[in-house]
């Protein structure tokens, strides 16, 4: 077999180029380190920031967005960019969850998850098998979901007839249940992405769809499964959100669509697909929550918090882009 190998050459990258590369690289790394340092210093010097209670507050506020963002991560890695139908899906599933409380918590949860999977999975199938543009498709889906939800509910708020949902508001060990669920789900998603053939296929399909097709990978199926997973995670967000608010209407999802996208992007995942991880999304969600928290504690308004969230996303997007360009120069 040795005959087949060609003589290996020394890695002969021209000196000029490597010097140039490392200079840009150093600049990027320095910027990132500086940003982290500033954040740490500002954080530590902020009254009440470095306390256990506050840490709980941060992770709690990251939990609901975080779970939805995990779902979006699957969609993004699979090359479908983003879903713009997250908020309506969460609202509709939340309404269904509260409306079915009389059946008991278990059945209500099951129905909610099934609905989330169905609604999102159908979109995934259209994207996966027909190659439809996910952005337009999810815009259409958001109209369809909201329209249907209003049509059925008459536009009014759903209030539960049984209080079974309240166990989702539990705080075992003084930490909200949704936080445990977030961590568990992040680990499960991360494991599936890294260790299963579904995960590998998803990265491959997401990075290069024509290549995946030519290599005979099941493009349609893989995409659909990813969206089904996303639907499940949206449903989990929905039940927690509905339980927390004790009532649900078509506005339940609020700004969740954009919050989830922000978390995914802040985690350094590119919308081009083929890259990203659940843990990085988790980090993105926590990063945004932590910075918002610092600003909150320092007395900045909600507006400033939102603005800084946008700037963080912009910063990460630019840095990640520059880095990956460097890496492949």
């Amino acid at each position: 077999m040795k005959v087949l190998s060609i003589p290996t050459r020394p890695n002969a990258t021209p000196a000029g180029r490597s010097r140039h590369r490392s200079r840009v690289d150093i600049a990027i790394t320095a910027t990132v380190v500086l940003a982290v340092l500033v954040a740490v210093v500002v954080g530590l010097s902020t009254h009440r920031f470095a306390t256990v209670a506050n840490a709980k507050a941060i992770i709690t506020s990251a939990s609901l967005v975080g779970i939805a963002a995990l779902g979006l991560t699957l969609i993004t890695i699979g090359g479908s960019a983003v879903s713009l139908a997250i908020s309506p899906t969460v609202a509709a599933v939340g309404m269904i969850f509260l409306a079915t409380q009389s059946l008991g918590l278990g059945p209500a949860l099951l129905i909610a998850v099934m609905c989330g999977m169905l609604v999102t999975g159908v979109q995934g199938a259209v994207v996966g098998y027909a190659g439809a543009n996910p952005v337009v498709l999810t815009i259409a889906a958001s109209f369809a979901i909201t329209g249907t939800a209003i049509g059925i509910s008459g536009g009014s708020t759903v209030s539960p007839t049984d209080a079974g949902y309240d166990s989702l508001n539990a705080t075992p060990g003084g930490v909200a249940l949704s936080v445990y669920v977030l961590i568990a789900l992040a680990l499960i998603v991360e494991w599936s992405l890294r260790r299963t053939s579904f995960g590998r296929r998803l990265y491959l399909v997401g990075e290069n769809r024509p290549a995946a097709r030519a290599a005979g990978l099941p493009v349609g199926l893989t995409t659909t499964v990813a969206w089904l997973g996303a639907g499940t995670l949206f449903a989990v967000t929905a039940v927690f959100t509905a339980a927390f608010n004790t009532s649900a209407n078509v506005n339940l999802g609020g700004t969740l669509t954009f919050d989830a996208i922000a978390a995914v992007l802040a985690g350094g995942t590119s919308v081009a697909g083929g890259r990203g991880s659940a843990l990085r999304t988790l980090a993105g969600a926590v990063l945004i929550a932590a910075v918002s928290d610092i600003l909150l504690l320092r007395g900045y308004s909600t507006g400033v918090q939102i603005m800084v969230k946008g700037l963080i996303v912009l910063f990460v997007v630019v840095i990640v882009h520059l880095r990956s360009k460097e890496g492949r120069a």
Partner: protein
Amino acid sequence: MQQGVNPAAPFARPGEELVRAEGLTKSFGSTRAVRRASFSIARGEIHALCGHNGAGKSTVVKMLSGQETPDSGAIRIGGEVLDLRSRQVAQGNGIALVDQELSVVPSLTVAENLMLGDVRTRWITRRRAAGKRFRTLLDSVGLGHVDLDRPLSDLSIGERQLIEIARALGQDARLVILDEPTATLSDVESDYVYAAVRTVVTTGCAILFVSHRLGEVLDLCDNVTVMRDGEVVATTPVADLTIDSLIVQMLGELPHRPDKRTKDDTGDGAEALAVSGLSVPGRVDDFGIVLRAGQVCAVAGQLGSGASDVLRAIAGLVPSATAGITVDGVAVGPGRPRAAIRAGIAFVSNDRKSEGLFLDKPTSWNLLATRLPHVTRLGVVNRRVWSATLARLVELCGLEAARADHAVRSLSGGNQQKVFVGRGLGRDDVRVLLLDDPTRGVDIGGRAAIHALLRAAADRGVAVLFTSTDLEELLDLADVVVTMHKGVAVQRHEGTTAGAVLVREMTHGAAS
């Protein structure tokens, strides 16, 4: 800079020098695409640039047209050294271009495409006035029948190419560069281009003509500059050239042939692939072939000859293809890549960047992408099986084991191609290996390694079918060569065939 460069031969047609390339050098990473290339073109001259694939022709073109900046060397136009920073600057200096890759916009109309990027277009466009000029322009390339307001997407690929040529010719440029302008054109269409080019040079402008069609080069051009492996070999007046002498200039000394098998070694296998009546509307007409297990067969044809389409259709990637295909006697429905793969057909595209490799993923992922079912248990990756399979493949492909975890993007082109080919190797379920131009952009060493891989696959009983435009490769590797020209098979050759015959058939079709 100048030493070691062949002094330009005297021109066939005397004229004032217009363009001079002086020691142009360009590297991409550690690929030295062009080294100290020098030549000059006179006013009124049609100057050909020839060379094998990857010789550096297009890179020279890119430097002359402002798309790439030379690492060193200079470009003089009308005696003045110019810094061609961008396409606009080059155009401002009177350099028009037809790129090797079709560069028109299908969603625009014919007229809009003709105006596109023209530095003379004013902010307010006056269509009426331009209309007359465009009509004349279209007439000159034989598109008199085409409506100026039709979107280009209504036109055939050949017609689109003619539009791009018309655009360049209509820019009143001092130098018009045509990089393989006729590769996708029929004879009739090409004739219009030749006529138009001849007309344009009478106004004193110069043409740089890149082509693999040696016949047209000899008919049309005044001087030929031949490049080989990034360097200029010679510039010769056409009067002093024949097709055969030009081929020798391009190929240089043929390297020593590796163990090319005799005809007896093959042909005893069972029929592995049978294709009949393969047609792709507008591209391939009624192609058929039978291959035995262990045979290596080349479909040889120039760009646009339909050779690639034949392979893609067999791989199920052309939805409009019709064909009867059987693998080991079992019929495979066309148009469905997964069915083809299930039947044992593995395909290696000629476009490894967009249709082949997952560039940002590690070598290991790329090699195992088509084998996930074999390395997983109940959907979970079995790390032991994964590493064992990987180790076997890395060894088989002659890759560095240590780099299996590096992104494929960081490998050299040759090694990338080995990874790509390696995906279809060492698998019992692969019966037919299809490779579309497997050594495009790969150097001599990498090419030999890939050839060895293909041979080894054939020895294990796989039927190998590949396309190539490269004579050397055809002669080295193939047991059977089917030449193609304009969508139809010209001739099937088994055993030794003279290279010149193949080149002739690929560039001229069947002898008449």
